Structure formats: structure tokens, C-alpha cells
């Protein structure tokens, strides 16, 4: 794995009035890596991710994403990342093809590229029969796979996934992770938050946030060793016990 760094943060902080949502987090993410971002509800995961995507301006600290500064170059960052929020966010009243066309278009793909991409994508997802159907008619698992594929339609350097597999059955989750591996193989860096601790095992490296701070960061194996635990569940509970903030 190459050691090129695509995300680098230094004491990145976000305050809302008195509340410190994200407290001086510092970490690096390497190119092509699958980076797991774990934490209990309210630990600050989503806020941290929103800052990295340019959706929210940090209070202090530094962060570079895809080689650009989150303070000064949010527009350049947006051109180079993909994002999939925990809320399903494709247009339900547009068809599969139309959604791909729309997002391809606003990322500046040419008509030819859009055509190629949507063919390829529909092929990959096996959605031939559904291509012209409205997204609202698809089952949740399909929607999420489609959502992910649309998030990387413009070949971003990094894709941010905010709890992408919430509410989906295990078989579907497997298929979803296959897509993630595919993307990582193509050199797209994956930054993913999740609730499912078994999914953390699929990541190259995992960070665990507690009360706005990063309390641990290592490969899943490394973490198990450090915390002398047999699985990620135990690691997580050992850390989460220290949390003072209640969920939400």
C-alpha cells in the first residue's frame, strides 16, 4: 500500500457555543485505505466528517483533504470527494438513470462519460430492469448500493460514508462491502463511519472516538492486541465505558 496521505488533520476542533463536539483530533488517512471511524452516538463522528467534507467550518486546528485546505479551499475539496449521508439522499422521484445523469452532470462529466458511466454502473449493480424505474420503488439495500455508486461516479479521490449500511440485512451488507473493496482497489480512499462492529474488522485501520476525542487508532488486529480483547466489540466497550456524554 502506498503511503501517500490524502487526509491529514491536526488538532481539528468544532465548538457549538460551550459544547465541544470535536476536540483536537489529529490523524492521517492514506491513499486507497479503508478507514473506519467508530464511536458511540454523539461522540462527534458525523461532525468531524462534515468538517472534512466542507459542510461545516472548523472552529480551530488544521485539516487537508485531497491536498486542499478545509478552511481555504472547500470548493476544490468538493470536486475531489464523494459523500453518502446516513439519510438516503438520492431523489426518490427520479429514475435510477436520471439520478446518475444528474449527479454526473453536476460533477462536470461530459455527456459521453455520463452515458458510459451509467451503463457500467447499472451493469455492475445488475439493475438492467430497474434503470428506468423511480428510485422510490427500489428496496432499501438496492438504494444504498446505488447511492454509493453515485457517490463515486466522478472518480473522487476519497469517498465519505456516514453509516452506509444502517437498517440493511446481513447479506446485503456483504454485497455493499464488496462494492467498497472494489472502489478501494481502484485507488479510492474510503472513510466510513459505522455502528456495526463486525464491519470494523473489514477496515484497514480503525479509529474510535469517545467524547469528541480519538481514543484509539490502529489496525483491527493491533487494537485487539492493545486492549487484549478477542473481538472489536470488547475493544469498543472497554473504551466506551469511559464516555461521560450520554448518547444523543
Amino acid at each position: 500500500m502506498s503511503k501517500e496521505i490524502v487526509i491529514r488533520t491536526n488538532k481539528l476542533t468544532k465548538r457549538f457555543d460551550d459544547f465541544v463536539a470535536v476536540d483536537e483530533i489529529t490523524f492521517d488517512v492514506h491513499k486507497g485505505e479503508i478507514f473506519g471511524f467508530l464511536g458511540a452516538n454523539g461522540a462527534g463522528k458525523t461532525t468531524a466528517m462534515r468538517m472534512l467534507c466542507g459542510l461545516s467550518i472548523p472552529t480551530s486546528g488544521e485539516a487537508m483533504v485531497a491536498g486542499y485546505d478545509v478552511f481555504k479551499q472547500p470548493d476544490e475539496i468538493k470536486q475531489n470527494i464523494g459523500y453518502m449521508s446516513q439519510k438516503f439522499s438520492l431523489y426518490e422521484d427520479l429514475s435510477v438513470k436520471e439520478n446518475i445523469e444528474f449527479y454526473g452532470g453536476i460533477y462536470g462529466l461530459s455527456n459521453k462519460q455520463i452515458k458510459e458511466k451509467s451503463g457500467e454502473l447499472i451493469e455492475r449493480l445488475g439493475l438492467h430492469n430497474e434503470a428506468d424505474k423511480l428510485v422510490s420503488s427500489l428496496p432499501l439495500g438496492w438504494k444504498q448500493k446505488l447511492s454509493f455508486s453515485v457517490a463515486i461516479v466522478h472518480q473522487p479521490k476519497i469517498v465519505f460514508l456516514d453509516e452506509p449500511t444502517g437498517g440493511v440485512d446481513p447479506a446485503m451488507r456483504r454485497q455493499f462491502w464488496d462494492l467498497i473493496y472494489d472502489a478501494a482497489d481502484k485507488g479510492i480512499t474510503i472513510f466510513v463511519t459505522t455502528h456495526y462492529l463486525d464491519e470494523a474488522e473489514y477496515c484497514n485501520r480503525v479509529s474510535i472516538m469517545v467524547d469528541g476525542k480519538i481514543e484509539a487508532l490502529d489496525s483491527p488486529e493491533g487494537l485487539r492486541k492493545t486492549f487484549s480483547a478477542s473481538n472489536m466489540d470488547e475493544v469498543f466497550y472497554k473504551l466506551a465505558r469511559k464516555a461521560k456524554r450520554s448518547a444523543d
Partner: protein
Amino acid sequence: MRALRFLMQKEFRQMFRDKGFTGRLFIAPAIQLILLPMAANYTIKNINIAIVDHDHSTVSQQLSNKILSSGYFKLADYTDFNSKAGALIENDKADLVLEFPSGFEKNMIRENNQKIAIQVNAINGVKASIGFGYLSGIIADYNNNLRLQWIQPGRTNTMPTIDVVSSYWYNPSLTYYIYMVPAILVSLITGIAGLSAAFNIVKEKEMGTIEQINVTPIKKYEFILGKLIPFLAVGTVVFSFGLLFSWVIYGIKPLGNIAVLYLFMYVFLFAILGFGLLISTYSQTQQQANSIMFLFMMVFNMMSGLYTPIDSMPGWAQVITHLFPISYFIDVMRMVVIKGSGIHDIRMHILFVFLIGLVLNTWAVLNYRKTT
């Protein structure tokens, strides 16, 4: 700019996919343009009159007939009893009571002067004063004729008379719907084009799709234009449809220049879309947007001069109505469509609505930045 094209394509696709959309675009305006002018008819006619005749003389009969054949009045009752007439006013069966005292004709001849009592239900002041106006006109007219008949030759009529000749310009038949239809069209456009823009944006907020848009390299102004331009198109369609409809159904053809109407409509849409945008920045859910809209639509409808004249409002209320773009547009529609006013006549309207639009849009864009 390429992104803008895709944004607009998306909006149009969503619009036409919405099953209720064509209904909102054509059927609702058609229904309202048919129903509202029928209901909103303030022509004062069919005034119910009760006549209490204690005299039963030729004069009282003649005058009664003249009143009833004037076309303004409908006989509620013809009676001898005051109490009965009073009850008719109390339960709204009669708007006016005319009372001939006994000995009416005899006294008139003997004393040259006889009073006639009229009671008016004045709860609706306008109806009361117009009704009384009609009635006293008829009485005066009858009185003049009576003199001409009765005055013996040789004795000349020394009473000078002044005729008031009224002419009603632009709407000589005093047809009320000519006044209402152009204004109703304004209320329709406000509802359909202006306010649905706000719902549209709030819907993206609620569905979470706006998050997805925010992480793309789309510029704010592109997003806003992508939302506004389709609604400008919707406004144009509804407006054109409404004009055509009022021509076909009501025979109302704008007397003034249609280009002036369209020009003003775009200035108006600029302002009202800015208002919609502003509301969307303040609401998180469609329900919030809905309640805010509800309040504003109600105030707009009641205070914009649609139903009651702005000139009749107290000064402070007039100041408030002059903050609403809709009251300018209603005025302009009535001016250009009915009177044929030109661009010079509405220059201040254009200026004010443009300024209001500028303030609303700037406010909205500033507020929009802050929230994201």
C-alpha cells in the same frame, strides 16, 4: 453553468413526475377563476325593501311601484304594521324600511311638504349608504315628475334643478368581475409559483438531498438559480393561462400593453420567489414552512386590496400593505388590464417591487449562507 443545466433538468423532471402538478398548474387556477368571481360579487342590487303603507293613496302606490321597478330593490313585504317591518330588519329579511304615514298624500297637497320615514340596516355601512342613495334618488325623481304634473299652468316652477350626469369610464356597466378577475390571477400566481418554490427547497432539506448537493462543487448561486428559473417558467405558464382563460370565459382583454404586464410579472416573481426563498431558509420542515405560508397567504389575501380597497384602510395598515409585492401587482393588473395604463403610469410600482425583491433576495441569500 453546465451544472445549472442539470439542476434545471432535474427540477423539470420532478415537476412533471408529480401527479398533482398539472392539476395545480391548470385545474386549480381554472376552478378558482370560475368560482371566485361568482362568489366575490359586491354589486349592490336586490336590496330588500319593506314598505309600510299607512296611507294607501295614489301617491304611495305610485312611488312604491317606481321603487320596485327600478331594478335595485326587491320587495320583502308590503304591510300596514310597523312592528312587522321592524322584525323584518331584525332578522335580515329587509335591508330598508320605507314608511308612508297616514294622510301622506293629503298632507303633501295641503302643506306642500311631507316627511317620509326610512330605516336602514346599517351594519354593512356601504350597502346602507348605497341603498339609501338609490332610494333617495328615486324619490327625488318621482317628486320632480309629480310637480310637473300637478303645478297648474300659469304658476311656473321657480325651483332651479341641477342634473348630475354620471359617466363610468372603463367599466360602464359596473360589472364586478371585471374588477375581480385580474386580481384573482395575482393571488393564484403567488400561491402556485411563488410559494411552491419555498416548499420545494424545504423538501430537499427534509429529505436530506440538500446535504448531498452541498458536498458537490455546485455554487450556491447555481443552486438557487436552478430552483428559481423553473418557477419563473411555471409563473409564466400560469399567468398566460390565466390571461387566456379570463379572455375566453369573461371576455376580459387587457386594454394596455401585454408586454408591460409580463414585464411586471417578472419583477413580481423576482420579489415573491425571494420571499419564498427567505421562508425556506427559516424553516426546517415542510410543516413549518406550511404554517408560515398559511399566515402570510391569509394576510396577503385579506390586506392586498383584493377584497377591500387599500385606500379605505387606516394609514398604518396602508403602510403594511405597501410592503407586500402582491398589492402592487393587483393594482398594476387592474390599471393595465382595465384602464390600459402604460409603463409610465406604473413606473413607481416597478421600482418599489424591484427594491422589495432586492431586499428579500439579499436577505435570503445571506441567511442561506449562514445556515450551511
